[in-house]
C-alpha cells in the first residue's frame, strides 16, 4: 500500500458523515493537523447520496456484510501500558432491506408494441405514412414508458439520499454555511410547496402571508384567524401572557381553545408547527416560530434542499478541511484504537500506527465497548422512484409533506424532481422517513397506500400522459388502474412506483455517547429523525468546543475572488500582455 501518510496528527476523524465532517473542517480551519479517514470508497457514510449503481453496490454490501478482515493488530505497534481496542460496528447495520421493482426488466420490442398499439387504435392516420414515422411515434411513446433497463441506463443521473433532510433558511446550518463561507461549495433550491394529508386528500398548506391571502382552501374568517394566530406565535416572548396555563398542555389543546376550524387546526398542528397530537404546547410554539422565522429568506417556504442531494453537504465541509491542509484517505479503515489510562493515544490502520491528540469517530466506526449497552432505536426509510409527482402542478415542485399517523410520529415525506439533479427528467424521487416501530415496510405503509399506485405496471400501457395531465389512457383496459382511485375526478392519478427500497437503520441521537469513551474520544451520531440539520450542527459544535474551548468555530474562510481578482485588475500579469489578443 502506498503509505507516505504522516504518522502524527492533532485530530484523527474516522467516518465522513455530516457531524464528523463539520468537526474535521472546524479543526483544520484553526490550523490543526487533521487526518480524515473513511473505510468506504465514497463520502458521507449513512449521510451519502448514491447513483443507482452505487446504491445497488451499497445494498449488496449491507446484505453480505462488509469484508472487514480485522486482522489481529500486531503488537509491536502497541507499547507498554497501552491497550488495543478493536473497532467493530454494531451500529453500521442496515436491516430489513426490501427492494422491489414495479416495472418489467425490458420494454417489449418495437414490433410487439406496434401490434399492441394496432389492436387498440382503429384508424390511426399515421399508418398510411411510411414506417419511419410510425416507429418514431412508437419510440416517442416509449419515452413515457419505463423499464428497469432504462432506469439503469440513466443510473448516473440519480442522487439517492440515505438521509434526506432539509435546511431551515434561518437554521443553524445555513447560518454556518454563510458565516464560514462554505456556502460557495453548494447550491440549493427552495422547497416551494408544503402539502398536508387531510380527509383522504392532499392539500397545499398556505404558510406565508402571501399564501394565506391567495389560498382558496380557507374562507375569509379563517384567513383572519390564521393570520392572528401566526402573528401571536411570531411575537411570542417567554414573559408574555398568551400561553399562560398551557405550559403543561399540548399544542392541540391550545389550538382547540382558540376555536379554530378543523381545517386550520390541521394546517397549523401538522404542517406549520410540524407537531402531532401529543406535542407539548410550548414545543409546538417554538417550532412554529422556527418555521415562520425562516419564511421569505429564499422563498415562500422555510426550507432549502441541496442540489445533487444531501450527500453534497458533508463533502462541502471535507473540501474546506482539505483546503486548510486536512489529509483525506478513503477506502482506509481503522482496525483498532490504542488506549492508555483513560486517553486514546493512536489508531492502528493498515499496519501503521497513527498518533493523535483527539479521535473523532462516527458511531458506525466505534468499538462496541465505547458504546456500552445503548438501547436500540431506529429509522424506517423508504426511497421511491416515481413516474410523476404526488400532486401534479404546472411546474416542477419540491415538496415537503408531514403525513400524520394517529398516535405516532408523522411520516416525513420529501419529493424532489429532476431540476435538483437527483433523478433523470420525467421522474420524481420520493423519500419517506419515520421512527421505527415495526419495520420500514409496515411503518410506511399508510403513506405508501394513500399516495402511491402500487400495482405492477406492465410496460405496455401508460396510464396517463405526464405532461398534459389528461386522464386519457392508451388502453381501455387500463381503467382498472384508476378504478379504485378517488383522485380520478381531479384529473390526477397517483404516481406509479417504478422502484421501491425500504430499510431500517439505527437512530442514536437520543443517547449520551460520551459515557463509555476515553476523554479525548468523541463520538458522532448518525442521521437523526428530525427533518433538519440542527442536531448534527449542534453536536459538531459541542465536540469542537470540548476539544478546543478557546477557539472560534469555523471562522469565515477568505474569499479567493476578493484576494486575487482585485490585484489582476489593477496591474495585470506582465507575461499576459504579449499573448493577449489585439484590442479592437
Amino acid at each position, binding site marked *: 500500500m502506498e503509505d507516505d501518510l504522516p504518522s502524527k496528527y492533532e485530530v484523527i476523524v474516522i467516518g465522513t458523515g455530516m457531524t464528523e465532517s463539520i468537526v474535521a473542517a472546524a479543526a483544520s480551519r484553526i490550523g490543526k493537523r487533521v487526518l480524515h479517514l473513511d473505510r468506504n470508497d465514497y463520502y458521507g457514510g449513512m449521510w451519502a447520496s448514491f447513483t443507482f449503481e452505487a446504491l445497488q453496490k451499497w445494498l449488496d454490501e449491507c446484505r453480505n456484510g462488509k469484508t472487514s478482515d480485522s486482522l489481529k493488530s500486531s503488537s509491536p505497534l502497541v507499547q507498554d501500558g497501552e491497550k488495543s481496542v478493536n473497532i467493530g460496528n454494531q451500529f453500521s447495520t442496515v436491516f430489513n432491506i426490501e427492494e422491489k421493482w414495479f416495472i418489467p426488466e425490458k420494454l417489449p420490442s418495437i414490433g410487439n408494441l406496434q401490434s399492441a398499439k394496432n389492436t387498440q387504435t382503429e384508424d390511426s392516420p399515421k399508418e398510411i405514412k411510411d414506417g419511419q414515422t410510425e416507429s418514431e411515434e412508437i419510440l416517442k411513446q416509449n419515452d413515457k414508458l419505463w423499464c428497469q433497463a432504462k432506469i439503469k441506463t440513466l443510473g448516473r443521473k440519480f442522487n439517492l439520499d440515505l438521509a434526506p433532510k432539509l435546511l431551515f433558511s434561518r437554521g443553524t446550518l445555513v447560518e454556518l454555511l454563510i458565516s464560514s463561507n462554505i456556502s460557495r461549495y453548494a447550491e440549493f433550491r427552495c422547497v416551494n410547496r408544503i402539502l398536508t394529508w387531510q380527509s383522504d386528500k392532499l392539500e397545499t398548506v398556505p404558510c406565508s402571508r402571501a399564501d394565506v391571502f391567495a389560498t382558496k382552501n380557507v374562507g375569509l374568517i379563517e384567513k383572519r384567524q390564521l393570520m392572528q394566530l401566526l402573528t401571536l406565535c411570531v411575537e411570542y416572548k417567554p414573559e408574555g401572557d398568551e400561553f399562560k396555563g398551557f405550559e403543561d398542555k399540548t399544542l392541540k389543546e391550545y389550538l382547540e381553545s382558540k376555536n379554530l376550524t378543523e381545517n386550520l387546526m390541521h394546517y397549523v398542528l401538522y404542517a406549520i408547527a410540524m407537531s402531532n397530537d401529543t406535542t407539548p404546547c410550548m414545543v409546538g410554539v417554538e417550532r412554529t416560530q422556527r418555521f415562520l422565522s425562516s419564511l421569505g429568506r429564499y422563498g415562500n417556504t422555510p426550507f432549502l434542499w441541496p442540489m445533487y442531494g444531501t450527500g453534497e453537504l458533508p463533502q462541502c465541509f471535507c473540501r474546506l478541511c*482539505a483546503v486548510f491542509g486536512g489529509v483525506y484517505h478513503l477506502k482506509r479503515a481503522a482496525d483498532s484504537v490504542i488506549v492508555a489510562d483513560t486517553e486514546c493515544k493512536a489508531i492502528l490502520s493498515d499496519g501503521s500506527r497513527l498518533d493523535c491528540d483527539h479521535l473523532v469517530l462516527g458511531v458506525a466506526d466505534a468499538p462496541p465497548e465505547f458504546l456500552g449497552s445503548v438501547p436500540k432505536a431506529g429509522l424506517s426509510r423508504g426511497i421511491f422512484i416515481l413516474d410523476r409527482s404526488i400532486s401534479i402542478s404546472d411546474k416542477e415542485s419540491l415538496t415537503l409533506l408531514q403525513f400524520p399517523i394517529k398516535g405516532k410520529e408523522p411520516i416525513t415525506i420529501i419529493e424532489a424532481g429532476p431540476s435538483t439533479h437527483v433523478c433523470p427528467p420525467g421522474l420524481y424521487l420520493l423519500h419517506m422517513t419515520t421512527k421505527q416501530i415495526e419495520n420500514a415496510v409496515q411503518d410506511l405503509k399508510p403513506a405508501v397506500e394513500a399516495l402511491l399506485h402500487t400495482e405492477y405496471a406492465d410496460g405496455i400501457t401508460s396510464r396517463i400522459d405526464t405532461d398534459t395531465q389528461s386522464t386519457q389512457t392508451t388502453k381501455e383496459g387500463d381503467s382498472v388502474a384508476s378504478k379504485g382511485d378517488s383522485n380520478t375526478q381531479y384529473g390526477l392519478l397517483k404516481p406509479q412506483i417504478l422502484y421501491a427500497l425500504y430499510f431500517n437503520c439505527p437512530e442514536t441521537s437520543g443517547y449520551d455517547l460520551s459515557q463509555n469513551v476515553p476523554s479525548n474520544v468523541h463520538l458522532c451520531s448518525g442521521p437523526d429523525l428530525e427533518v433538519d440539520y440542527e442536531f448534527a450542527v449542534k453536536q459538531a459544535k459541542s465536540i469542537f468546543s470540548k476539544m478546543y474551548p478557546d477557539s472560534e468555530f469555523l471562522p469565515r474562510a477568505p474569499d479567493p475572488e476578493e484576494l486575487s*481578482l482585485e490585484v489582476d485588475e489593477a496591474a495585470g500579469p506582465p*507575461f*499576459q500582455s504579449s499573448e493577449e489578443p489585439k484590442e479592437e
Partner: protein
Amino acid sequence: MDPSVLTTLKILLIGQSGVGKSCLLCRFTDDTFNIDNAVTIGVDFKMKKITVDNNNIKLALWDTAGQERFRTLTPNYYRDGQGAILVYDVSNRESFTCLETWISELKTYSTKTDIIKMVVGNKIDQERQVTRDEGIAFARRHQTLFIETSAKTKEGVYMAFEELVRKILNTPSLWEKVEDANVVRCNDGNSSISEQKYCYC
C-alpha cells in the same frame, strides 16, 4: 454582475500529486513560480479575467486542495465544471499512465456531458520520460485538447488556458444557459427583497 463579462467558467485541475497543478495555476493567475509549495494548502480556487477573441471571460480555476493525494476528490468538486485540465509530468511516466483513471473519474462525476478536456504535459524544462508524441496520441484517443507546458519557464501556460476557454466558448451548450432563478446560493447578500410578502412581522 459586471456587464462587460460574457460569462464565468468553472475550470477544474486534475492529475496526480506533484505534477505541478498549483504551479500552473499560480503561473497563470499571478505570474509567480514557487518551487517550495510542496503540497497544496490553502488554495481553494482562483479567479482570473481573460480576454479570448474579444470576449471578456471570468475563470474560476479550482485546485484539488491536495485531496487527489489518495485519490479522494469529492464528487462535489466536479459539479458543473465546464472545462477540465488533466495534468501530467513529462518527467514522470507514472503520472502519465494514471491519466486513464483520472479521465474515467472525470467521466463518472462530471455533470456536463460535453465538458471540454485538455491534457497538459507539464515540466518540459526537465528531463523527459514521456515523449510529445505519446501525449498527442493519448489526447487523440480520448478526444481532448493537448499542450505541453512549463510552469517554471512560462512556456505554453497562457496558451493552454486560452485554448481551453476558446473551445468552451465554441460549445455554447456549456455556458449559454438560461440563468435558473430558482437556484439559491446562500450568502449574506441575496436574501429575498420581497421578504415582507412572506413573513409575519
